């Protein structure tokens, strides 16, 4: 079964590349498409530069994402668990959430000293909300039964929070982290388009040179890295949550 799935997926990618090639040859769409061959050549040509830009982008990402984890998980957990914390934190979150990370870029570029910090903050803003919201949902939806049983066994409040609420919320937290990784990585590109070095900046630079194959090449690199990051989280999810019935069905 798995073989067939992988075969079909591979076929799909091949067909996609073929269609892309056809579309670029025929010049059907009202756009100038680069040929797959050109893109492949660009990747080859840029091979020595890609690692350094990747390094910059990943650094931005790790910095911003780590802060998001450190802030969002406790904030989400405590808001989900304690009414008073929720009343305090939620209004602020709900007001800031609708502001898209991209809209923060001018603000952040002015107010933060270095480009690196500016990028990291944009990524933080992007990844914060999914992690916060999912953690919040996890903690606010701990089944009452779990808590009641713990109380009858003599568990104190702290024990209940750490030994019952936290494990119970773990699936939600991990799901939030996975989404946060996706959104955070998208913000990397946005955050770098205006100065800080990295893959995103390169996309802009290549655009100025009208080098669409290079632009596409960098886009692919970004896509692959984003995919890989999400895969990693997914694998952690599956390994940690093997106790959930019927969980490991779709990977």
């Amino acid at each position, binding site marked *: 079964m798995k073989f067939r799935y992988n075969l079909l997926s591979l076929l799909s990618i091949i067909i996609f590349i073929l269609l892309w090639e056809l579309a670029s040859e025929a010049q059907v769409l009202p756009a100038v498409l680069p040929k797959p061959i050109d893109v492949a050549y660009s990747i080859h040509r840029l091979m020595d530069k890609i690692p350094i830009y990747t390094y910059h982008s990943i650094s931005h990402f790790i910095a911003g994402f780590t802060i998001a984890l450190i802030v969002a998980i406790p904030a989400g957990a405590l808001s989900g668990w304690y009414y008073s914390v929720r009343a305090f934190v939620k209004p602020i979150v709900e007001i800031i959430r609708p502001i898209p990370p991209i809209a923060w870029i001018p603000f952040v570029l002015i107010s933060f000293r270095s480009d690196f910090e500016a990028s990291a903050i944009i990524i933080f803003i992007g990844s914060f909300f999914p992690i916060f919201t999912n953690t919040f949902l996890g903690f606010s939806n701990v*089944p009452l*039964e*779990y808590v*009641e*049983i*713990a*109380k*009858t*066994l*003599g*568990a*104190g409040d702290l*024990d209940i929070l750490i*030994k*019952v609420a936290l*494990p*119970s919320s*773990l699936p939600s937290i991990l799901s939030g982290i996975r989404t946060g990784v996706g959104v955070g990585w998208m913000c990397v590109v946005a955050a770098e388009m205006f100065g800080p070095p990295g893959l995103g900046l390169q996309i802009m630079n290549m655009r100025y040179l009208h080098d669409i194959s290079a632009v596409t090449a960098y886009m692919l690199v970004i896509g692959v890295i984003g995919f890989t990051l999400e895969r990693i989280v997914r694998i952690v999810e599956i390994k940690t949550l093997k*106790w*959930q*019935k019927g969980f490991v069905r779709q990977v």
Partner: protein
Amino acid sequence: MFMTELNVISISKSFNNLKVLNNISFTVKPGRLLGVLGPSGCGKTTLLRILSGIEKVDTGKVLINNEAPNTYKHKIGYVPQSLTLYPWKTVEENVLFGLEVRGIDKKSSRDLVYNLLKTVGLYEFKEYYPHEISGGMKARACLARALAIDPDVLLMDEPFANIDAQTRYYLQLEVLKIHEKYRKTTVFVSHNVEEIVFLADTVIVLTRRPAAVKREIDLSTILPKPRNMFNDSFLNIRKNLVQLIQEEFM
């Protein structure tokens, strides 16, 4: 071994304007098993939730050895109707949980837990997860978990309600066996008359909502244990109890 006496004195409970328990009083003498029978929805679960400390009474009081229930002093073993186990813990870890939160480390409690698991017949399954075991096994695991803390009082809320009839017979025998071994003062709630007649030393029959004690019967004098489900005295008592409950539906 020290056995606990449980006294329930005139407890009433309402939820919003719905009165569920109406002036209920009874005593469970040390080491005895009290069966609580009543029509569905009459408040049996609420009664048990009050005894376990999850709910508070509106009026009346509960006394354990003539003292108010105290989480530090008194230990209550509770087997919920839902047979809830923590899905992220194995059977063994679930049973250990009560000891874990009381600060007793795993090494010292291991032997105790293993013996308990052997008593309920789950030793081979100690490393299984709740989703991998059957309903009957979950009931046993919940029972072991409740017993692990060496409770003063054992409360069982229709633990076999969702279990098939055959497994239920075995589990009833287990409860009897465990009661004889550990002599825990027990309150066993059920809507299954046969089960109660088989297990209980004393029975109280509740009226329908708001529940009051309709009748209290001491079975220990009229039906010596071990009991035979098919002999005349058993069937006779069962018939009487069924009639008592049916009256509540008229």
